[in-house]
């Protein structure tokens, strides 16, 4: 513990703030009481060690996932709200150190309660060694989901710019609830693998066995936890004025596409369009672009930058996103075919992201909200107006779908024209930024 607190001063601080003697003793007493009460209840009902382990691990991980996530989700939010953030930014602590310190340190009391319940679970394995597999799978899944949920909480907190918004405080319980749902679903899935008609995971055509399915899920949760952590680290690094790295967002989008395509691979090879492998990275690209907040000021500095490597690293998120989505489309097309839709979706994405940037160059105080409102209308109005008016022939130009009744060129003409039009308008704005003397 000492070594950890030396390495991550944040853990020392959270420990000093949140683990007073009274708190520790009452936490320990409550945990012991819960274990004893559960033991009594189980002995009077099923009387099985398996049931006892199921109840103890359920309590342990539900508490850790929910309470831990609430703690990490308010970590940066609280610093900003209470104006202690600037002091942290001035220390030599890196974004990695701050993010890891908050991820591990903020839920320190949740970890303590988790540790208080652990001996009860270990006792079960001691008295009933046959259920060690259940123990291992539950704890591996539980820990990986806890880390994922807490890392997403930290990510949400790091993007809460003001620290005073309700979003910062609300995101913790919301993510916590989503984490609980994932936790309990994966516990149920893990239990179902012992049944005769178990639903095994297929990934790129490979059927995973019971143990490998659990391992796959654990690694998946850990991988997404690592991405969420890197996202939080990146956002904290922006506050520390650390240099950006160009690879992070494109690699995440490629990873996401590869991961989703793994599940769709079988059906895609038998002729079903792997929509989610394109749509989910596209959604992530939207979210990253909207959260990046790269406005006029950022562009002026980016365009005036002299070092080519620095300029590459500082490339605005929407450009990196759109370029990566084109690559993903190309790879999916080469792997599975299906033609025009691979161009239609990225063209609409490009149109939307260019419009977003155009809004950021406008005088709007909330350009992201402005862009969202107009984009929502751009997708909703054609359906509302053109369908009742029986002008459906125009729809392929305005909505992203492949109309097999028309040629590919006709299907692509609409989105391409919109991209060119918004590109032209955006070019004018960029010229304005470059010639801006103020």
């Amino acid at each position, binding site marked *: 513990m000492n070594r950890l607190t*030396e390495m991550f001063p944040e853990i020392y601080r959270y420990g000093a*703030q949140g683990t007073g003697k009274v708190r520790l003793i009452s936490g320990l007493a409550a945990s012991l009481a819960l274990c004893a009460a559960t033991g009594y209840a189980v002995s009077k009902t099923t009387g099985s060690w398996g049931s006892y382990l199921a109840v103890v691990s359920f309590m342990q991980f539900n508490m850790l996932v929910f309470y831990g996530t609430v703690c990490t989700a308010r970590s940066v939010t609280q610093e900003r709200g209470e104006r202690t953030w600037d002091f942290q930014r001035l220390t030599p602590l890196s974004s990695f150190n701050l993010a890891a310190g908050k991820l591990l340190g903020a839920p320190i009391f949740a970890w303590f309660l988790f540790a208080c319940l652990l001996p009860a679970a270990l006792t079960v394995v001691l008295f009933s060694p046959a259920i060690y597999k259940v123990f291992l799978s539950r704890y591996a899944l539980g820990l990986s989901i806890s880390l994922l949920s807490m890392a997403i909480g930290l990510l949400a907190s790091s993007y809460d710019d003001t620290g005073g918004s309700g979003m910062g405080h609300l995101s913790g319980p919301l993510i916590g609830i989503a984490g609980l749902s994932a936790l309990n679903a994966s516990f149920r899935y893990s239990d179902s693998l012992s049944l005769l008609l178990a639903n095994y995971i297929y990934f790129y055509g490979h059927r995973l066995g019971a143990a490998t399915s659990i391992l796959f899920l654990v690694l998946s949760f850990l991988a997404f936890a690592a991405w969420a952590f890197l996202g939080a680290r990146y956002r904290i690094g922006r506050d520390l*004025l650390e240099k950006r790295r160009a690879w992070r967002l494109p690699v995440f989008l490629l990873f996401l596409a590869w991961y989703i395509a793994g599940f769709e691979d079988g059906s895609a090879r038998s002729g079903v369009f792997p929509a989610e492998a394109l749509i989910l990275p596209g959604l992530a690209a939207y979210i990253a672009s909207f959260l990046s907040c790269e406005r006029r000021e950022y562009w002026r500095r980016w365009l005036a930058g002299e070092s080519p490597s620095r300029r590459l690293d500082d490339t605005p998120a929407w450009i990196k996103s759109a370029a990566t989505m084109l690559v993903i489309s190309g790879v999916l097309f080469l792997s599975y075919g299906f033609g025009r839709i691979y161009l239609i979706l990225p063209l609409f994405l490009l149109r939307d992201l260019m419009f977003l940037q155009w809004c950021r160059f406008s005088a709007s105080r909330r350009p992201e909200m402005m862009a969202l409102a107009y984009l929502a209308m751009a997708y909703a109005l054609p359906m509302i107006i053109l369908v009742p008016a029986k002008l459906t022939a125009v729809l392929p130009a305005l909505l992203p779908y492949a109309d097999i009744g028309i040629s590919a060129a006709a299907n692509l003409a609409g989105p391409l024209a919109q991209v060119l039009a918004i590109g032209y308008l955006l070019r004018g704005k960029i010229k304005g930024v470059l010639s801006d003397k103020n």
Partner: protein
Amino acid sequence: MKDQIVRTASLRREYGDVVAVNDINFSVPRGAVLALVGPNGAGKSTLLKMLSAVLEPTRGTALVNGVDINEDPRAVHASVGFLPDFFGLYEELTVSGYLEYFARAYGVPRARRQAVISRTLVDVDLSNKADARVQALSRGMRQRLAIGRTLLHEPPLLLLDEPDSGLDPESRHDLQKLFTRLAGAGKTLIVSSHILTELEDYCTHVAILREGSLVAGGSLGEVRALIGNKRRVRVRAAGAQDGALAILLAAGLGSAAGEGGSVFFDFSGSDEELSGILKRLVEGGVKVLYFGEEGGGIQETYLASLGKKI
């Protein structure tokens, strides 16, 4: 160049259409205590944030302790101790726990940490509060604790944004003593404040900001000369003041006049010329009991600057 701890080059910061800091060029010599003065909204806080590399400039740059704030902001953080105008402390920690956390964060080695914390507690006069919780401290003590945090890593430059705002006279006096001690220890201080009279005792330089622009900057004498502000000098001689008055009038100081047992005159020359006047009085047989400036400090200089066009 090395003796300038801060040197800005067309430093500029905009917030949307508002220019908070407008192409400022100034420098601060190592060891100076600079008073950064100006009305609310003049750009003082923005300037200090840029110098401490927590806020990126829109254009221009600054070298802080030889490091470019745009190129390596993290290295700048190591050279500065910054106290923002509004800040929070970790209320649930004890005073020594608070300093312990930041000492760890600043990478103070374990073996030296306790000594550094004890020394800092002495520096900011909080040794008797080491075990008290931060939430139990008075406002003045909180301010001193926050300043203590800026000293932990022994930075050569301290940037203090209105450290005395909201403090009672006694706390302000304590703070003033602390700044004098720090200046004596060779630290360079840039202090923004509205309470100008209290800056006079320890400030060697002044920079006057208005509407984001630098009206004047340099040593107090230089700034006064630039603004054209005259010093008001009082002379008190033993016995009647007539002799002193006659000598001063003969020296061409037409503004000299007797007033309540002293003679006052306005003077716009250099310090050497002023000492020449004293010499003439003494050589003229005047038994000088007191010879010194009345006012003419930062407050008067700042008020005089208000009439100067940007």
